[in-house]
């Protein structure tokens, strides 16, 4: 098996979902690498800024977390996302999965340019660019209308067996020609249809041009996707000269229900390898442990004293409470709860107990 690429630190089998049903090849490569604790935190109370390797580890966690889900790469006209899509393709191919690319926007040669030879071997390209409406009547190629669960799984079945990644370049092209519900239903059914044909689709990568669609459509797709990466331009001064730094804001939805959000600068080196360039210095990390002291103390600015000193507190504890019974009376009361009620009378200091019967004085 090819040596694993240095920038991917993979997690050893610790009960992660992919480890249970990984290919033998994948398992071998996983056992070579050590473990790393990926620390992308939940956007909960804390927002910690991590070290540099967290970003790269974050890329790794994306792969380990996906299980037949949709990964959406959202770009705009200011910053293109196809190079990021190609890095995911390269990573997938390096993991030993076959990659089925459904290309509609750029020709095949342009898509294959820049990949290493071992990546292009695993790449199976379905050409939807040359003849999308089938005017020439030639066999081969892929038509837009064929994008249904059955059509896609039919194309997948022609490739080698084993785990497969489906890449859509781009989803926007399909959405401009077909209604969204049909496309979403097809995307949802692709893993099931492929499974019935004997394949295993690990994930579906889709490139979406965010500014081509109404915001409702983009929001809907984001809610359906398992992970969303938004690509935008980075401000100047990030990274060394020669790279084109970009900002990736990632949103990942795990199976346990947790939602991870992270922003990171990255650049893409030759051979489509990503390189993390650190995080934006946005929000100041707020530690919630300092909060109780900063909370408004209601007893602070009053004209009377509401606080207790220690001696005062002890004096308060020492005051005898009413109905303060002796210990044995308490225990007997507690034990005898099931029997008939007994009357306990403890005379206090002001009581005058006279045993004589007052009726004896009567002269009748």
């Amino acid at each position: 098996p090819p040596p694993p690429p240095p920038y991917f630190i993979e997690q050893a089998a610790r009960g992660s979902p992919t480890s249970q049903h990984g290919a033998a090849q994948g398992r071998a490569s996983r056992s070579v690498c050590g473990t790393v604790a990926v620390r992308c935190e939940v956007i909960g109370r804390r927002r910690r800024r991590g070290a540099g390797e967290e970003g790269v580890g974050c890329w790794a966690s994306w792969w380990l977390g996906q299980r037949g889900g949709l990964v959406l790469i959202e770009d705009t006209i200011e910053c293109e996302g196809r190079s990021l899509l190609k890095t995911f393709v390269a990573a997938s191919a390096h993991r030993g999965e076959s990659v089925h690319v459904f290309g509609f926007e750029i020709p095949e040669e342009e898509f294959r340019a820049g990949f290493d030879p071992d990546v292009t071997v695993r790449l199976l390209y379905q050409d939807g660019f040359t003849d999308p409406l089938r005017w020439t009547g030639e066999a081969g190629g892929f038509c837009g209308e064929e994008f249904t669960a059955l059509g896609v799984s039919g194309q997948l079945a022609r490739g080698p067996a084993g785990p497969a990644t489906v890449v859509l370049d781009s989803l926007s092209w399909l959405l401009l020609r077909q209604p969204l519900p049909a496309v979403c239903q097809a995307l949802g059914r692709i893993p099931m249809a492929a499974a019935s044909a004997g394949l295993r689709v690990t994930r579906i990568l889709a490139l979406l041009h965010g500014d081509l669609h109404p915001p409702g459509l983009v929001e809907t797709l984001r809610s359906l996707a398992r992970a969303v990466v938004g690509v935008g331009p980075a401000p100047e001064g990030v990274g060394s000269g020669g790279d084109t730094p970009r900002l990736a804001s990632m949103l990942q939805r795990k199976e346990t229900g947790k939602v991870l959000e992270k922003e990171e600068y990255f650049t893409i080196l030759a051979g489509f390898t990503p390189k993390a360039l650190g995080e934006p210095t946005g929000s100041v990390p707020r530690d919630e442990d300092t909060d109780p002291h900063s909370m408004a103390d209601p007893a602070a600015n009053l004209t009377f004293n509401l606080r207790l000193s220690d001696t005062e507190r002890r004096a308060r504890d020492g005051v005898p409470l009413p109905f303060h019974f002796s210990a044995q009376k308490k225990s007997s009361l507690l034990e005898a709860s099931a029997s008939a009620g007994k009357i306990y009378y403890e005379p206090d200091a002001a009581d005058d107990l006279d045993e004589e019967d007052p009726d004896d004085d009567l002269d009748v």
Partner: protein
Amino acid sequence: MAALATGGATPSDGATSFQRKVPASSRLAAIAGTRPSVRHGQLLLSSGLPSLDCVLGGGLAVGTLLLIEEDKYGIYSNLLFKYFLAEGIVCGHNLFVASAKEDPADILKELPAPLFDDVHKNQVDEKETAIKSKQESQESMKIAWRYQNLPKMEVSPAASARFGHYYDVSKTVSPELLKSIKWHRFFLPEEMSLHPEIKTCNMTCGYTRLLQSIQRIIYQEGFDGSYPQKKQKNILRIGIQSLGSVLWGDDICCTDNPEDIFSLTKFLYVLRGLLRMSLSACIITVPAHLIQNKAIMERVTNLSDTVVGLESFIGSERETNPLYKDYQGLIHVHQIPRLNSLICDVSGTKDLAFRLKRKQFTIEFADHQPCASQKEHILTFKHRLSFRASS
């Protein structure tokens, strides 16, 4: 008022020593897991969350529809959905699970496990100890010593005779418990593949099939009284996940001008008719934040009985607000049904927040002031007491 089940509680339960005096002959055959409401005389079901039952005025009435407006990532609405179904399992009701995204069998496998009495009794909530003064320890109470041998009321869930149970979110329900109930499924891709002759982008198609399926189950299993000789009646709990999302074939979530703007409202109208004429209750989650045309949500609210909206703090600026630091989100009760009355008699509190712990999902007032000497839980506990007093 103590939660008197129709059978009464024996003193050995520790709950109460009062017994309801009902002559044995006139006792109606009660359906498991229900209790009559003292307000409007309807039969009430538990929604799976005792604190949500308090907010809704005792529970969900049989024959009504509970609509949950999903939070942004659908986490907590999914949890409420699961609590509802898990309550059905514990009470022995029949389930009908419909989804377009996940297989209903997978949904049922991930339901939370119920907590029974002996497990939970030992784990005392810290809030209950804060109500006594600081110097009292748990073992010997100085002031309230008569009560120290009694178990804590209304925190410990009892066996399935009680109304409303607690669930442990970290564990899933055991397969034996799942097998003991009868459940029906509706998975839209499966239905579509079985009958592919109808076009997949016809959005009323998915809704029509679902309605037909529900009607068929109600009729076949006799929930609408079609088999009067069947003595043991049961409730059908229907759960529909993410209705109105694109996976059902409806495009109200993506455009302002959908193709058929009324298909969801028609569905709800027919569904409510089916519910009213049968012994069933339904929970539906709707991705309301995605629906573009706000008029649709107004109509949907009108056509449902109980509408609860969830708003989670994940990713929003309220997350770091110190007022909300113990809570995971807000609950907005948009509508409570007016059954057999002109007004709904549940207090209109607007600031409810929810907090999710592993064993408890509590809904509390969000506007508490921190107390200087003790933790702020005193006030929240007092408010929870007032919930109990009113129900």
